[in-house]
C-alpha cells in the first residue's frame, strides 16, 4: 500500500455553507496550496488536519481574507465571494479564532470581544451595555472574569476563551477555530467542546484545527486532510481510525528507496561505554515532559512524531536555544548546562532548525558568508577566517554538497529551498561538530536534494559523527536511523533499536495508540 486512497465524499447533508474549489496560493518560491477543494456543511464540526507546512493555515487565511487567492473560487451560502480583508469575511458571517491569540492584551476583555460592533449611546461607546453583553457571552463559556478587566491580566488559557467569545458574539454561520485547545487544560477543553456542540446543534458550521488526535475524534464529524499543500481526502470521522488518519497526514513516498547502507556503530553500546550525550529528565514547562536520552558516537537517532509532539522542543533544549527548567545534560561524562546556543556550539553540538527561513537563513548575505557564519562567530570578529581557508572551505562544500548555483557570491535569498538547506548544513559541518541535530532537514525540498542530504547523513555517521534526525516522514527516519525515538503529546513514548522488526506501520500504530502498542506490531496497517 503506497498511496492513501481518497475516500469518496459521503452524500451531502444539505448544501455546504462554504465551498472552496480549486484553491491555489503561492508565495515567492513556494506553492502553499495547489488546487485544493474544501467544503463545510452547516451543523457539523469539521476537522482540518495536516502536518506543518501542509497548508492548513494558508487555507484558513484564504477563507478569512488575510491572503488573496491566486486561483479558485470561494462560495459562502451560495454567493461567490472574493475576500480581500478580514473585515470582508466577517461581514459574510465567517468568524475566526487564530492559532496565536490575536487580541490586544492592552484592551479590556469586553473591548476585545466587541470592538468593531460595540453598542453606542449618544455617539459614544456605551461601556455598561458593552460589559453586559460581554458578560452574557462569558457566561456561556462558563467564565466569571470581569469584562472590564484588562485582557493582559489573564492567563493565556483565558485569553484563548475570550477570543472564542469574540467569535461567538458575532452571529456567525461559520466559526473557525485554529488550534484553540493548545493552551487549555482538560476541564477547559470539555467546556469548549460543550459550547461547540451547542453551536453545532444551532446549525453553525465549525472548522476545527487541532494536533491532538483524541480531541479531533471526540468532537469532529468529518475531516479533511491536507499534505504538502495538496488535498489528500475527506473522511467521515466515525468511519475512520486514528491509524488511517495518521497515515493520511504523514503519507508514504511513492518511490521505495532501499534502506541506506550505513554501518551501525560497531559494537552495541554497552554499559561501560561513555555516551557522547547523556540526557536525564530534561524538561521545560509547557513544551516538553521529562526526557531521558543517550547518544553514542556514530549513532543516528531518528525522532518520529507529529507536529506538537515535542520533537522540536527536545532539539531546542539539547542545543540551548531554549533553556530547560529541569534535567541534566552530560557531554562525554561531564555535566554541561546550555543557556545559549553559543555554549552548545562550544560543546561541539550543531542544530539546524526546521524553520529555515526564520531561524537559519540570513537571506541578504552570500552563500559564502552564510556558510562561515558559525565558524566566524566562534572565532570572534577580530579573527576573520583567512581568505584562503575561506575560499577552500566554501569551494569544498559547494562541491561536496552539489550546491547550485556553485557561486560563493550568490545571495542566499535567490537559492531554492534545497540549496539553502545544504548551505545551512555546510555552515554546521564546517564547525566539525560531534553531534548534529537536524530538525526536518528535508521538508519542502525537491527529491534530488533530499536523497543527497540523506546520503550525507549516512556518510557522516560512518565517519563517527552522531546525528539526531527529526522528520515527519517515517520512511526517511527508518532508512537512516540506528535507533528510533517516538514522541507524542510532548513526551517520549518509545525508544528502540531500528532492526527488521521496526516498520512504518508499527510506528504509526505507536503514535496513534500513544505508546500502548509499542511492542506488538500492527502488521495490517
Amino acid at each position: 500500500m503506497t498511496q492513501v486512497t481518497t475516500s469518496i465524499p459521503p452524500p451531502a447533508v444539505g448544501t455546504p455553507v462554504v465551498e472552496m474549489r480549486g484553491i491555489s496560493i503561492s508565495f515567492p518560491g513556494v506553492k502553499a496550496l495547489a488546487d485544493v477543494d474544501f467544503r463545510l456543511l452547516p451543523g457539523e464540526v469539521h476537522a482540518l488536519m495536516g502536518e506543518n507546512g501542509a497548508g492548513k493555515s494558508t487555507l484558513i487565511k484564504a477563507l478569512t481574507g488575510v491572503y488573496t487567492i491566486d486561483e479558485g473560487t470561494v462560495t459562502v451560502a451560495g454567493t461567490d465571494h472574493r475576500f480581500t480583508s478580514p473585515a470582508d469575511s466577517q461581514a459574510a458571517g465567517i468568524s475566526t479564532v487564530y492559532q496565536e491569540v490575536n487580541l490586544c492584551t492592552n484592551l479590556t476583555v469586553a473591548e476585545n470581544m466587541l470592538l468593531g460592533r460595540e453598542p453606542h449611546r449618544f455617539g459614544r461607546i456605551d461601556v455598561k451595555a458593552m460589559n453586559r453583553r460581554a458578560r452574557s457571552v462569558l457566561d456561556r463559556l462558563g467564565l466569571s472574569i470581569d469584562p472590564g478587566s484588562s485582557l493582559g491580566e489573564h492567563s493565556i488559557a483565558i485569553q484563548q476563551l475570550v477570543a472564542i467569545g469574540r467569535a461567538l458574539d458575532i452571529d456567525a454561520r461559520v466559526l473557525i477555530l485554529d488550534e484553540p485547545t493548545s493552551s487549555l487544560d482538560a476541564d477547559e477543553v470539555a467546556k469548549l467542546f460543550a459550547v461547540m456542540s451547542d453551536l453545532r446543534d444551532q446549525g453553525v458550521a465549525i472548522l476545527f484545527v487541532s494536533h491532538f488526535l483524541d480531541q479531533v475524534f471526540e468532537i469532529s464529524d468529518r475531516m479533511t486532510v491536507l499534505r504538502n499543500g495538496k488535498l489528500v481526502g475527506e473522511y467521515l470521522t466515525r468511519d475512520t481510525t486514528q491509524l488511517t488518519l495518521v497515515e493520511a497526514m504523514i503519507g508514504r513516498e511513492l518511490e521505495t528507496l532501499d534502506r541506506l547502507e550505513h554501518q551501525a556503530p560497531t559494537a552495541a553500546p554497552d554499559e561501560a561505554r561513555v555516551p557522547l550525550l547523556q540526557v536525564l529528565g530534561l524538561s521545560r514547562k509547557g513544551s516538553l515532559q521529562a526526557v531521558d536520552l543517550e547518544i553514542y558516537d556514530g549513532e543516528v537517532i531518528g525522532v518520529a512524531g507529529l507536529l506538537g509532539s515535542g520533537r522540536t522542543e527536545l532539539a531546542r533544549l539539547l542545543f540551548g536555544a531554549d533553556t530547560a527548567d529541569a534535567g541534566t545534560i552530560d557531554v562525554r561524562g561531564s555535566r554541561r548546562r546550555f543557556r545559549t546556543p553559543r555554549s552548545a556550539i562550544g560543546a561541539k553540538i550543531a542544530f539546524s532548525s526546521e524553520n529555515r527561513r526564520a531561524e537559519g537563513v540570513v537571506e541578504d548575505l552570500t552563500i559564502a558568508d552564510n556558510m562561515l557564519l558559525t565558524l566566524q562567530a566562534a572565532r570572534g570578529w577580530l579573527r576573520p577566517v583567512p581568505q584562503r581557508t575561506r575560499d577552500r572551505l566554501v569551494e569544498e562544500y559547494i562541491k561536496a554538497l552539489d550546491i547550485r548555483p556553485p557561486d560563493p557570491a550568490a545571495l542566499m535569498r535567490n537559492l531554492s529551498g534545497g540549496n539553502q538547506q545544504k548551505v545551512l548544513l555546510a555552515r554546521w559541518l564546517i564547525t566539525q561538530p560531534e553531534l548534529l541535530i537536524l530538525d526536518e532537514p528535508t521538508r519542502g525540498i525537491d527529491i534530488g536534494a533530499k536523497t543527497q542530504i540523506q546520503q550525507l547523513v549516512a556518510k557522516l555517521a560512518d565517519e563517527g559523527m552522531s546525528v539526531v534526525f527529526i522528520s515527519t516522514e517515517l520512511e526517511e527516519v527508518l532508512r537512516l536511523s540506528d535507533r528510533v525515538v517516538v514522541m507524542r503529546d510532548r513526551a517520549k513514548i518509545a525508544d528502540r533499536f531500528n532492526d527488521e522488526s521496526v516498520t512504518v506501520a508499527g510506528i504509526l500504530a505507536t503514535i496513534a495508540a500513544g505508546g500502548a502498542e509499542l511492542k506488538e506490531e500492527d502488521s495490517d496497517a
Partner: protein
Amino acid sequence: MTTSTSVTVSPTFLDRVRGYSPPRRYLPVAATVALLIGMFGAGSLRYQGFADPQVVLNLFVDNAFLLVLGVGMTFVILTGGIDLSVGSVVALSTMIAASTLQAGWPAIATIIAVLVSGTLLGTLMGLVIHYFEVQPFIASLAVMFLARGLCYLISVESIPIREAGFTAFAQGSVPLPGGYHVTPSVVVAVVVFAIGAWVLHMTRFGRTVYAVGGSESSAHLMGLRVALVKVGVYTISGLCSALAGLLFAAYTLSGYSLHAVGMELDAIAAVVIGGTLLTGGRGLLLGTMFGVLLLGTIQTFISFDGTLSSWWTKISIGTLLLIFVVIQRLLTRRQN
C-alpha cells in the same frame, strides 16, 4: 482576578497563572502625580509663594501650546508611531498666521488657513507612513524639514502680529473665583484636551488607536479599520500642531522660522513622562497633562531657585525620561 474564574484550578493551570500580572495601567500615571506633588511640596517648603494656586495656574498659562501638542502626540505614540514634525509645524503655523495677518486677511480666514495646512501636512505624513510603509521616524523627519523649509520661503525675518483680535486674545484674561485668572489659551487647551480624552476613551476610533498600538496585526484580524486610524492619528497630530502654533503665535505675538526649535522633544518627553508607553498601546491622556505640568514645574522650580542654572531643566528632563523608560521596560518585561 484569575482565581475568581469558574475554571477549575489544576496544577498545570497554576503554572500558566505565572503569566498573570496585577492591573498596572495606572501605575506610571500615579508615579507622575506623586512626583508632581512631591516637587510642589519641596518647592513650597523651600520657596515662599511657590504653593500659591496662581503658580499652578501659570503652569497652564505658560504651557498651553505644549498641552495641545501633547494631545496630538499622545494619539500618535499610542499607535506605536512618533511625530518629529510638530515643532516645525508650530513654527510654520506662526509664520502663516503672521504673514497672512500682515497681508490684511481677517483673523478667521487666517485661523482656517493655518488649521487646514497643518491638518493636510499631517494627513500626508499618515498616508506615506501607512501606505508606503515608511517608518514614522523618517517620514515625520521629512515633514519636519519640509515645514522648516516652507517657513524660510515665507520669510527669514521675524514677523510681528498686530492684528486686533490676536492681541486681544493674547492679552485677555479669564477670571476665576478667588481672584485667580488664566488666559484664553488655557481655555482652548483644556477644551482640546477634553475633546481628545473623549475621543480616545469613548469612541471606537479611540479604542482602535489602543488596539493598533497593542498589536497592529491583531487589530487588522479583528476587522478594525487600521488604515483610517493610522492616517487619522497623524492628521490629528497635524491639526493639534497647527492649533498649538496659533496659541504660540498669540503667546509671542510673532511669526518666526526659529520658533519652537526642539519643541517636538518636549512634547515627546511630556507624553513619556506622563506614563504612555513609547511602543504604543498603553497610556492615558490625563498622564500627558501631568507630564506637561511636571515639565512646567521643573522650570518654575529652577526660576524660583535663582541659583540653579537653566541647563538643569534639560538634565532633569533627561533623567525623568530615563526613569520612566526604565520603569516601563521593567513593567513590560515582567509581563512577557
